C-alpha cells in the first residue's frame, strides 16, 4: 500500500469515527445548551437504539431491515426521551446536580432492564449484505486504499442527520423558537413561545438522534447492556471541546477528536493515543475554556 493511500485511509477513518461521535454527542449538546441538563442516561439511548435495531431485524429480516430500524430506533429513543423529560428532568430543571444524579440512576435502571430482558452477554446485529463490500482502489497514487461500505454509509447518515437538524434549527418556526429559548428563556416565554414544549421536543430530538447512532454503532460493535458507557465519555469530551450547546462546535470538535486519534495512531498505539487525546483536550480547554465555538446565551450565564 502506498504511504499516501494509508494516510488518506486514516483521514477517512478519522472522519468516520467523527461521524459516530457527532451523532452520539449531538443530543447532549442540544439538551445542555437549551436546558443546562447533563443527561447521564444519554449512553443508554444509544444502547436502546442497538436493541431496537436487533428487534426490528428480527421482525423485518432481509436487506431493508436496517433502513426500517433507523426510523424505529429514532422514534423509540425519542419517545423514551420524552417520557424521561416529562417525568424526571423537567421536574428537576433548576437543579443541575440533582438531574445529574437522577439521570445516572435512570442509566443504571435501563442497563439492568436490558440485562434482564436480553441477557448480559448481548445480542447479535449483522450488517445487511448490501453493506458487505468495500470500495477498493487498486492502482495509482492511492493504490491499496479500501473504504468499507459500512463506514461510507455511516458518514452519509451522519451528514443527512446534521443537515436535517441544521435546517430544522435555522429554517423552521420550531427552530426559531429553539434559538429564542436558547438565547433568553424568560423573554422568549414572554413573547408567547411555549418554552416547556420546546424543551420537551429538543430533548426527545436529542435522544432520538442517539437512538439512530445506536443502530449505526451496532454495525461496527457489540450490542450489550453496557455499550452506552463506552461512548458517553467521548461524547462528553466532544461536547466540552466543541463549546457547550453548539451544533457547529460539536461537529468541529468531533472532527478534531476523530482525526487527532486516527492520525496519532499512525505513530503510537491505541492506549497512548487515548492518553494524548485527553492531554490535548486538557491543554486546549486551558487556553480556550469556552470551547471551539462560543455560544452567547443567557442559559449558560450565572
Amino acid at each position, binding site marked *: 500500500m502506498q504511504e499516501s493511500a494509508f494516510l488518506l*485511509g486514516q483521514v477517512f477513518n478519522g472522519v468516520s*469515527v467523527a461521524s459516530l461521535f457527532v451523532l452520539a454527542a449531538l443530543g447532549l449538546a442540544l439538551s445542555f445548551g437549551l436546558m443546562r441538563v447533563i443527561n447521564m442516561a444519554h449512553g443508554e439511548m444509544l444502547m436502546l437504539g442497538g436493541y431496537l435495531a436487533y428487534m426490528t431485524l428480527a421482525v423485518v429480516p432481509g436487506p431493508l431491515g436496517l433502513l426500517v430500524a433507523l426510523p424505529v430506533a429514532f422514534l423509540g429513543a425519542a419517545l423514551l426521551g420524552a417520557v424521561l423529560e416529562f417525568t424526571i428532568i423537567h421536574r428537576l430543571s433548576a437543579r443541575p446536580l440533582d438531574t445529574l444524579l437522577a439521570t445516572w440512576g435512570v442509566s443504571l435502571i435501563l442497563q439492568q432492564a436490558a440485562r434482564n430482558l436480553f441477557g448480559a452477554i*448481548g445480542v447479535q446485529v*449483522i450488517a445487511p449484505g448490501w453493506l458487505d463490500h468495500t470500495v477498493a482502489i487498486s492502482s495509482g497514487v492511492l493504490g491499496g486504499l479500501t473504504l468499507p461500505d459500512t*463506514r461510507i454509509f455511516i458518514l452519509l447518515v451522519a451528514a443527512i442527520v446534521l443537515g436535517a437538524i441544521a435546517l430544522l434549527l435555522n429554517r423552521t418556526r420550531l427552530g426559531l423558537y429553539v434559538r429564542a429559548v436558547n438565547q433568553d428563556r424568560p423573554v422568549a416565554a414572554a413573547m408567547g413561545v411555549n418554552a416547556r414544549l420546546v424543551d420537551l421536543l429538543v430533548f426527545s430530538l436529542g435522544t432520538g438522534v442517539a437512538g439512530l447512532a445506536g443502530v449505526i454503532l451496532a*454495525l461496527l460493535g457489540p450490542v450489550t447492556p453496557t455499550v452506552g458507557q463506552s*461512548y458517553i465519555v467521548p461524547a462528553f469530551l466532544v461536547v466540552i471541546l466543541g463549546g457547550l450547546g453548539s451544533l457547529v462546535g460539536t461537529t468541529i470538535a468531533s472532527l478534531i477528536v476523530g482525526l487527532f486519534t486516527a492520525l496519532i495512531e499512525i505513530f503510537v498505539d491505541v492506549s497512548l493515543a487515548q492518553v494524548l487525546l485527553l492531554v490535548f483536550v486538557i491543554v486546549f480547554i486551558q487556553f480556550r475554556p469556552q470551547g471551539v465555538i462560543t455560544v452567547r446565551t443567557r442559559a449558560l450565564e450565572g
Partner: protein
Amino acid sequence: MALKHFGLAAALLATTMLGAVRPALADGTVKVGVLQSLSGTMAISEVPLEDAELLAISQLNAKGGVLGKKIVPVVEDGASDPSTFAQKATKLIEEDKVVTVFGGWTSSSRKAMLPVFQRLHSLLWYPVQFEGNECSPNIMYSGAQPNQQALPALTWAEQKGYKKIFLLGSDYVYPRTANLILKKHIAHAGLTLSGEEYVPLGGTDFSSIVAEIEQAKPDIIINTLNGDSNVSFFKQMAAAGMTPDKLPVMSFSIAEPEAQAMGPSLLAGSYTSWNYFQSLPGAANAAFVAAYKVKYGANAVVDDPMVHGYVDVMEWADAVKKAGTFDPKAVRNAAVALGFQDSPLGEVKFAPNQSMVQTGYIGQLQPDGQFKVIWSSPGPIEPVPYDPLTFPGKSCGAHSTF
C-alpha cells in the same frame, strides 16, 4: 501424650462452642469452598463455571460422597474484585473451615488469593488458562499454561505455512505476557512478526488497527482481545472485507459461549486453541455434556474453563480417596501422584509442579456455534510454567513446602 488431652479438651470446647472447631469433620459432611464472581463483569463467565463445579459436587454426593462424607459446597461471591476474592477466601478457610477451595478466573483474582492460601496452608484449584510465570505450592493449576495453549497455536500456524504473524490483544497482563512469550518463539522459529497492537479493555474502535493490518498483510492474526472488543474487531474486519476465511484469526479468549453470544456467522471459520471443545469425542465428555444439559437446560453450552472446574473437583475427590484424609497437604501430594485419569478432557493428570498434563487442540468455528477439532498436539503436553526462552533460569518443579 499431651495431644490426647488436647484432643479431649478440643472436643469439650467443640461441644460448648458449637462447631467452632473443625465442624467440617464433625458429622457426616465435609465443606468445600466454591469461590467465583457471581456478580460484576466476570459473572457472565464465572457463573457457568460455578454451575459446573456444583454439578461435579452433586454427582459425587449422588455416589455417596467422599470417604463416606457428603460434600457441602459453601458458595461465595468474588464480585469480580480481587480484594473481595482474598477476603472471601480467608472467610472460607478460617470461618467455614472448608478443606479446599475451587475458584478464581482472572489472574488478578488468583494473585490476590495466593498469599491467603499460602499463609493459611490451604489448597486452591484454579481452572482457567493463564500466562504462567507463577508456581505456588498451594495452588493446583489445571488451566492451560502458555505452552499448552499459545505455543501449540503457533506450532499449528507454522505447520500450516503461515509465516507473517500479527499479534493483537487487550491491554492488560495476560495478552502482554502471552505475546511476550509468542514473540520469543516467533523469532526462534524464524517467522516474521508483522505487527503488534493493544487496545484498552473494552475498546471499540479498530479503524486504525484494521488499516494497519491491511498494510502489514499478515498470514494470520493471533488475537488475545477480551470480551466485547472481539465483536467490534470482527465486525470492522468484515466491513473492510477481511473475513476469517480470507485472513485467518486465531483467538485465545473465544470459546463456545462467547461464539454463541457474538454470533457464529460473524466468527465462522476463525480458529481457537484450547484443551477442550464441547465437540470432543469420548464417553466421559458425552456423559458430562449430557449431565450438564439435564441440569442447566438443553441449550446450555460448555467450554474449556467449565470443564477444568468440573475436572478439578473430580481430581480432588480422587486425591482425597488416595490420601485417605481431607488434609490439604496430603491431598496435594496425592493429587500429583494420581497418574493419568479419564475425563471429559481426555486422559489428564497433574504433573509434580501442580499444573495439568493435557492435550492441546485447535478448533475451527462452524456456523452452528460449535468448534470442529482440526489439529491436536501429538500427545498430552507437559506443563511449563516458566517459558525457557522468555524466563531463562527459572523453573517450577515438585514442591516440598506447603
